[in-house]
């Protein structure tokens, strides 16, 4: 496969996943904002979302103050923010169009129709009353795309590169969501009600609130939330689940290339092993924030290694 084709497929997967993650993040932040009376606390929740999505530096450059209105606009609609939902959809479609022939018709239609619909969005689309509808729509479109490629793509190299993009982006998102709220999970006692709200928010943003109850059958506890999202393989958005698929996918690519491997394979294997055999007690003892920052850094490094080994060969 052309390196450029692999690159486009990988970024197609990443951008669709990022659009969905942004929508999830915004949904949860909106919910929190509507439940919080304290204005200062509300704005700090919006800042937290900016940090979780990795968009904080870019937002700071715009010189705006983080309020619901400015953050929603920046994360959902701003074309100058490369990670805004609208930009992600645009970038996903651009990458998809580059490799139109590597996509199945169902995948292409999922991307293309999302894009043409998104292009019709106006300021009105992002108005407070309409925003929930838009965010639900984005989430359903990413689920549709993921389903389309899971259901219709040949299990060949093209499929593996899309999946690699999806899983790396997802692992990264889960780590960031946790990291932003690490205070609430880190054991330091916070105001009970707010803490509980944050725990709920974390679980909701990765669609895991019900999963928590099914897995633990108990009330929310920070350490268990961290365990669920980092170490439990049965949660599809947990870091260990994502890394399991990343390793498997990279190995699949290597196998189809006669076993040719590089640093990206080693790194993915190492990270998967750590998550697979790690214990939550040790993670918490070493500091959740340090663990997550190190993981986010390694995610970035893995992305760079994949880029160098396969995508810019």
């Amino acid at each position, binding site marked *: 496969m052309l390196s450029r084709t692999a690159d486009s497929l990988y970024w197609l997967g990443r951008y669709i996943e990022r659009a969905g993650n942004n929508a999830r993040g915004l949904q949860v932040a909106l919910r929190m904002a509507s439940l919080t009376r304290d204005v200062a606390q509300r704005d700090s929740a919006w800042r937290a979302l900016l940090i979780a999505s990795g968009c904080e530096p870019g937002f700071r450059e715009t010189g705006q103050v983080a309020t619901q209105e400015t953050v929603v606009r920046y994360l959902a609609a701003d074309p100058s923010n490369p990670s805004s939902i609208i930009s992600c959809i645009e970038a996903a479609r651009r990458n998809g169009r580059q490799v*139109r022939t590597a996509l199945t018709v169902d995948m292409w239609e999922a991307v293309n129709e999302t894009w043409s619909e998104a292009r019709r969005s106006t300021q009105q689309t992002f108005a407070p009353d309409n925003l929930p509808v838009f965010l639900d729509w984005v989430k359903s479109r990413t689920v549709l795309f993921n389903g389309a490629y899971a259901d219709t793509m040949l299990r060949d190299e093209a499929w593996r590169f899309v999946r690699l993009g999806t899983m790396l982006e997802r692992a990264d998102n889960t780590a960031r969501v946790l990291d932003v709220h690490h205070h609430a999970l880190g054991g330091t006692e916070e105001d009970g009600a707010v803490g509980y709200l944050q725990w709920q928010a974390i679980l909701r943003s990765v669609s895991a609130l019900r999963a928590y109850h099914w897995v633990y059958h108990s009330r929310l506890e920070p350490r268990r939330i961290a365990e669920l999202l980092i170490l439990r393989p049965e949660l599809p958005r947990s870091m260990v689940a994502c890394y399991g698929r990343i390793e498997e996918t990279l190995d699949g690519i290597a196998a189809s*290339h006669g076993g040719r491997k590089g640093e990206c394979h080693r790194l993915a294997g190492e990270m998967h092993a750590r998550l697979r055999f790690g214990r939550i007690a040790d993670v918490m003892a070493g500091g959740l924030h340090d663990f997550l920052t190190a993981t986010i850094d390694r995610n970035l490094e893995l992305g760079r290694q994949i880029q160098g080994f396969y995508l810019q060969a």
Partner: protein
Amino acid sequence: MTTTTPAFDEMSADGLVRGPYAEIARWLAATPQEALERRRREAELLFKRIGITFAVYGEGGDPERLIPFDIIPRILARAEWDALSRGLVQRVKALNLFLLDVYGGQEIVKAGKIPAALVRENEAFRPEMQGFVPPGGVYTHIAGIDVVRTGPGDFWVLEDNCRTPSGVSYMLEGREAMLRLFPDLFARHRIAPVGHYPEELLETLKSVAPPNCRGLPRVAILTPGSYNSAYYEHCFLADEMGVEVVEGPDLFVEEDVVYMRTTTGSQRVDVIYRRIDDDYLDPKVFRAESVLGVPGLMAAYKKGNVTLANAPGGGIADDKAIYPYVPEMVRFYLGEEPMLSNVPTYLCERDEDRAYVLDHLDELVVKLTHGSGGYGMLVGPHSTAEQRAEFAARIRAKPAEYIAQPTLALSTVPTLVDKGIAPRHVDLRPFVLCGKEVRIVPGGLTRVALREGSLVVNSSQGGGTKDTWVLEDDPADITTPVGEAG
């Protein structure tokens, strides 16, 4: 001949339905307008969903536009097509021989059949190709010959396209859409298939593999990228042929061999169907600033390590100033009389031609010698005095850049428009493939001028397309009165 002459309608001439259209006429008479409208919208949806778009330059608005598709087919009887295709094969053979000659011994110039200056001073002439014989001796592997019709047996070649003719994907997708929308109509006709075009194209490309190719030739399509107006077509053809569509930066040349960058390392490429212009192919030989091409590509080509299709320099054969000499080429190289006629053409460069053109601007079509796509064109009978004055000034300033032709009364075919079914002018672009042998799939791309009275069929100028049917069983050209058709 001007548009005031009533145009020949391919379905119903003189109030009678022509044989090939008998079934269609019955169908049109029996189908209510709303039903047709609904089908038209369904067709549009199909095209939109598969993303078959065409970029229109410099007009703003939606950068990716659908070419309107008309659901009423254009139909040719087998005998009509056979005569036409024989003429096309003959013409493309002559064009290829001309290219070999013009970059070789230039016998046709020496024989005084074509003025030397017209060749040597032509912008489209590529001195880089002199003395080089492309693999298989083929220059123009894919030629699009634009044909218009003015009467039952009167076909004229309007222009030749020997560089990178596009549009074949519309022919193929148009047929697919029609098959999905009107299975019953297809069942009532025996229509020659066109779907094997990509296979024929691949065979053609493989048959001209370079001398140093070992094993099965690896073919790739070279595209300028996703912002090119025909990008959809590049991907479509690559997909149908099962080959890669590559951009310049995906390729590199090492020791005069062309490779593409892949996830498993570099892979040798043997035949490149390039859809970028000569100028951008190789910054080392042509335009230095080109980022679309591949440095060193021409050296690899000259060494016999890769085939370029179409070969660089083919533009000299489809130049509008050379066009009047094509019948002469047929006689010179093949010793045959041309089966297809040229449209009489005035070269503004010639004093007596120019005087005539300037006197008859209101009757003539004036075209740029090197232009394409219907840009920079004057259709005399539809022009204003102001436009004519502007063209007169331009012709006087740069006569060599203009040619003029009589305004032909292009044939019409019934077309679904806002007000119902009405005749609209059409042309036809058959695609002629030239490798070890010459192949044509029956029919081609029919383009239709959707505006009432308009003679400009280019998609950039509001033209649409139609499916083109060649009927296998030959309904003799027996006409039935229109009233009895239903």
